[in-house]
């Protein structure tokens, strides 16, 4: 099965070290659907790829017959700025989309650590950043999808309006699905106005309990930051608060927040402010260490800082960035595989922590730990859906999470 847009796989196409036999780059939705249909008919193990920035997330595949790339499905289809919605092909990058939306003072409030991350990949992984505090994850902003399925059909769910309860929300179902149900041809999002002004408060701590107390004071106040983050880096702890609104409201909130904090804080604006948040988003991904995603009960932040302190004593260099009010974070641990594996087990056995997933890991580490952790009690239902959408079991086969 060699279509016009298909070529031999090369080392650059490797999925977690496994070189695919072929790579297809369909140029339109129908070709994408036909490619999946043919792959399903021939039981070709298939991995979907946007820009490949998160392609290593998941278990190591035993074989990859085909990588299907959405790189050529890269059109921003429509920006309905009056309605504050936009529809883009799955292969459009978040950066490209937000550049276009900014022309009308709007944005899709999602952040990625990766410049080339595509809309399709972001939805398929439901990956998010600090402004999740206010806007949620991609699934909360997604209002419609078109999917290409393994039976060759193109189907849609949701629509172009922000309020809509007609039919099953397949957009939610593919959020976090890692391309296991079908390919995201296009996605429609609700958009937000770019705030007129912003300022960031950056406060450092050397004591996790003091940080946690300050965090709780902010949480229980009526301040409404756009992002509310913590960073733990060695013995240096930080709280970072982003306020974005009208100019007066920003400065009033910054003043109120400073009064709540027990430690001196710096007000950062302009380009340095961008740098703070770039740092917050990218630090966990710097270097080559294992990156672990985990959740915690928000009120247990003090316990989390203690846990991070304890593991850094054993594991050496670690860095953790997270969302204070959500209880969601990423941790990078350098060090050898034994140390990394022990850390994953340690997190999984902690009563304060849950949903520990290893996103970036060496093949060696993946031999030692299951990157996804234990399955949920609803996994049976998810598997039934998987069998329905992909009866040949070709999509992201064996890589999880299902």
């Amino acid at each position, binding site marked *: 099965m060699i279509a016009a847009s298909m070529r031999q796989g090369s080392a650059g196409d490797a999925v977690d070290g496994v070189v695919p036999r072929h790579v297809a780059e369909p140029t339109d939705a129908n070709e994408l659907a036909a490619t999946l249909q043919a792959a399903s008919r021939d039981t070709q193990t298939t991995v979907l790829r946007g820009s490949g920035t998160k392609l290593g997330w998941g278990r190591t595949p035993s074989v990859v017959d085909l990588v299907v790339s959405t790189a050529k499905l890269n059109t921003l289809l429509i920006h309905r700025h009056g309605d504050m919605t936009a529809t883009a092909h799955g292969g459009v990058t978040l950066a490209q989309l937000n550049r276009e939306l900014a022309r009308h003072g709007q944005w899709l409030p999602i952040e990625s650590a990766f410049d080339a991350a595509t809309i399709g990949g972001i939805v398929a992984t439901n990956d998010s950043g600090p402004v999740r505090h206010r806007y*949620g994850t991609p699934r909360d902003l997604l209002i419609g999808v078109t999917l290409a399925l393994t039976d060759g059909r193109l189907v849609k769910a949701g629509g172009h309006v922000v309020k809509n309860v007609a039919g099953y929300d397949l957009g939610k179902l593919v959020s976090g699905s890692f391309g296991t149900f079908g390919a995201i041809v296009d996605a429609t999002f609700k958009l937000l*106005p770019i705030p007129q002004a912003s300022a960031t408060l950056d406060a450092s701590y050397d004591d996790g309990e003091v940080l946690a107390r300050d965090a709780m004071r902010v949480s229980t106040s009526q301040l409404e930051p756009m992002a509310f983050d913590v960073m733990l880096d060695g013995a240096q702890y930080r709280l970072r608060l982003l306020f974005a609104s009208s100019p007066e*409201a920003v400065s009033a909130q910054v003043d109120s927040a400073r009064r709540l904090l027990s430690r001196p804080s710096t007000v950062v604006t302009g380009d340095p402010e961008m740098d703070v948040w770039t740092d917050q988003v990218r630090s966990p991904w710097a270097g080559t260490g294992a990156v672990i995603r985990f*959740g915690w009960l928000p009120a247990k932040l003090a316990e989390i800082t203690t846990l991070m302190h304890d593991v850094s004593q054993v594991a050496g260099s670690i860095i953790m960035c997270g969302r204070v009010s959500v*209880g969601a974070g990423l941790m990078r641990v350098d060090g050898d595989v034994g140390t990394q594996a022990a850390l994953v087990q340690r997190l999984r056995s902690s009563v304060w922590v*849950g949903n520990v997933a290893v996103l970036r890991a060496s093949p060696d580490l993946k031999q030692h730990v299951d990157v996804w952790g234990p399955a*949920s009690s609803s996994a049976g*239902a998810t598997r039934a859906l998987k069998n329905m959408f992909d009866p040949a079991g070709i999509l992201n086969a064996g890589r999880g999470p299902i």
Partner: protein
Amino acid sequence: MDERLVEEFCRIAGAENVLREPIKLLTYECDALPHLRQTPALVVLPGSAAEVQAIVRLCGEEGVPFVARGHGTGLSGGALPVPGGVVISLARLNRVLDVDIPNRRVTVEPGVTNLEITRQVAPYGYYYAPDPSSQQVCSIGGNVAENSGGAHCLKYGFTVHHILAVEAVLPNGQLVQIGSPLPDAPGPDLLGLIVGSEGTLAVVTKVIVRILRKPESVQTLLAAFDSISEAGAAVSDIIGAGIIPAAVEMMDAVAIRAAEAAVHPNFPPADTILIVELDGPSSEVRELFAVVEDTCRRAGATTIEVAPDEAQRMRIWKGRKAAFAAMGRVSPNYYVQDGVVPRTKLPEVLGRIAALSQRSGLPIGNVFHAGDGNLHPLICYDERIPGQATLAEEVAGEILTYCVEAGGSITGEHGVGADKKDYMPRMFSDDDLDVMQRLRDAIDPRRLCNPGKVLPTPRLCGEVPGPYRQHPVEAAGLADRF
């Protein structure tokens, strides 16, 4: 239903919690869409998740269809019983299990009312955001099934944005957790699929909701306009200025007249009334509210009333929320429609609705969530005049066509249920609907879980949309429609 089976249900839930006398079954014949009625064979009121599980298992073994029901306030017949089937009423599962203020979450059973959650957390300065108009009486389980919205979902989103996890019984009888109390559970968003699935994929037995800190300040204004297009321009300009109000509501002259007749909110005389509410930090609300006022004035507002206190704010909202039920004061019967259009298409679609009203001779009132384009046209008619009920139904259907043609939806918040399933093909292709049906069959292969809802089936004899009739909870003054 044969005696052996009835005894089985009695053994599971206790004989006192199994209803089969016709008089007791009457309550369960319909939800708040009373023209669709069906007597169930049996109503069971389980007292625990384990009992729900046993009931669903028994239904599965015996091939008996079942319909979960909260407090029966749904507006699309989502809880309409199935002939020969069982209604599982979750009214007894009404305990608040955990109020966790530090972690900003509350765990409840499905029969707890929406407003009860806010009541539980209000003393601490928190609230549960989704606020359907029936919030005093509607159940959180029903909210999960319908993905309920409310006046404030423009800024705060719907039920699906405020649920962390549910415990549910799947049609195969398995009791599972869907979603996670902690963020980022790996895998597809099954929770997002279940929320809004209208009771067709699972019976929810426990819900963990997120609560929000009360905003520091709330400001509400009412602006009167001489035309709906001026009011529409004001809405566009407010949102174009980068302001996301907590709520933006519009009422036309027909709706204003009805509201005045019913609850005397003392609205200024106007062709169109716009209600705008901002909330958030005081500094932000103060600054942006001035922009909103100015925008309304420039768009041609003839009067602007700013609510000086909570009592006046409530007066404005009372007038707005009473508009549906108030139609009874100006028309013998009326039909409530729920459709959505992209906000910029509001003037065009409202124009088409006005022309349709002229052409059909039926007055149509408009009350709607202008911020998100969610229309609620109220089609007035008199069922005593032969043919008017059918005409009203046709008019209501025509309005949905306008919504779909404008790129919108056949329902923004009331759900598809039994009422609108035959309109689904106007919005979705055969392939779209086939995939939805197959998805449903993957979870419920025997088609026992709330069958006959959401997806189109040939319409049954006598099953036609019909007039609005006041629901008992409305008559008792416990709820308003939205």
